């Protein structure tokens, strides 16, 4: 099997895509957004509940590929406890970093988001990884 492909579909990614965390709706979310990738039809809806300025929980519903699914699953876990501002900034940095071929993602060593690193070798799939993060930013800017 092609080594780029192996790097793309790491075990962590496959685990998340088969068995995503926090899949489902939040009733009465404080923020939410539905985003679609017009190129392939992938669609994700992200829900956020906050306490004060902080994200208490994030959940999502999606019809999408494994990369988008894994990215969304990791997102919901990763942003819990962040302030809205922090998570927005983080999402922006991350989305930007995916499009920089030669710089590694700005993550601590043990961050499970590293599992998405392999996407960079597949330009046509980068949007799959960033779509949930774009949805997050969109949700933050949409007050319910």
């Amino acid at each position, binding site marked *: *099997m092609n080594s780029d492909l192996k790097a793309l*579909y790491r075990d962590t990614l*496959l685990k998340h895509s088969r068995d995503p965390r926090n899949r489902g709706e939040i009733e009465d979310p404080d923020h939410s957004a539905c985003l679609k990738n017009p190129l392939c*039809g992938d669609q994700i809806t992200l829900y956020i509940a906050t306490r004060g300025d902080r994200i208490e929980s994030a959940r999502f519903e999606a019809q999408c*590929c*494994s990369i988008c699914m894994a990215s969304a699953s990791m997102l919901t876990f990763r942003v819990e406890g962040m302030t809205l501002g922090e998570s927005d900034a983080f999402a922006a940095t991350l989305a930007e970093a995916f499009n920089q071929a030669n710089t590694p993602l700005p993550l601590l060593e043990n961050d499970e988001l590293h599992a998405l690193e392999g996407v960079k070798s597949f330009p046509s799939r980068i949007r799959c990884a960033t779509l949930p993060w774009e949805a997050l930013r969109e949700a933050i800017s949409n007050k319910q």
Partner: protein
Amino acid sequence: MSEPHSPPQVPESLKKARDAFPILKRTVNGKPIVYLDNAASTQKPQPVIDAISHYYSHENANIHRGVHLLSTEATAAYEAARGKLARYLNANDESEIVFTRGATESINLVAHSFLEPILQPGDEILISCLEHHANIVPWQLLCERTGAQLKVAPIFDNGDLDVDAYLSLMGPRTKLAGLVHVSNAIGTVNPIEVIIEAAKAKDIPILIDAAQSVQHMTVNLQALDCDFLVFSGHKMFMPTGIGALYGKRSRLDQMRPYQGGGDMIAHVTFDKTTFKKPPSRFEAGTPHIAGGIGLAAAIDYIEAIGRDVIHEYESQLITYAADRLKAAPGVRLIGEPTNRSGAVSFVMESAHAHDIGTILDTEGIAIRSGHHCCEPLMGRFGISATARASIALYNTPEDIDALVAGLAKVNQLFG
């Protein structure tokens, strides 16, 4: 009877077809390319590439307006392409061929120049659930502007058009009926002869989207006798940026101009401007001359092989593909139409269409994954995307076998 999965014989005149397409000699990710994305765009044979280079190296000039030799030659070559296309489609007259950028522009032209001026609030435009966005969105935009209504005929679960439903939606307020000849997404061949006849009986102008048929089967306009027919060159071995609208001369004659500018006018003053006859009336500005030259070369290429040979072989090959995919583990076909041409769509239990596409790509196999510009059709099947394999004359049974082997790898990785 041959057994269901026996691969078709490649006919003699197609055995060397691959050699004419330089791109098929390329490797992708170290593997020889298996190109099964022909419904999106076909590859170009050397004679077409050469015709373009030759044009730019020997004849290039603006047309229709020059006395000098280059311009005369370019004009003659461009207009000869129109004649060749008219004969290829067996139109009544070459003035019925309007060159456009492709199927999309052709449909928009009909919307603007034919339909908009006669459309009243409450009038109806009829299409089917199988349509490409190109045969949906222009009508939606037009309905929004005019207060007309879009009516959509349903399909059956196997992907066949519900012909009776389509016919019964042809009402007294139907001002245009549009129908795709062959579905790019799931390969359904629609019985356009029946539909056209019914439309004529009810005096409803009918437009056929032939973007997925002109390259696979003989389309005989005099026999069909539809009002409009559209296609894109790039799906038929021709250059990008060229395609055509066929319009019955009596229809074209009634139509208002599309774009305004040079070459479509008879006479311009600031007070009053008059327009040329069709097809010039609809071809404002400098056209894609090299595109026309390449189009003619592609027709020569196709005709040298023979459309019947191509049609016969491709029918067998796409059946073989559908049979093999249907039998492949974890694969579910989307659409099993009674008549299929060109394409077969599927989903897998283990993997999303997008992931299938990526994994096959690393094997050198190019298919398309997504909604294929047919979101409503995807919605009809309750999915958002499929993987689609689509063929052209240069594909072989081995290409299909490679595809099926690639899907085994998908199962391996995701299963």
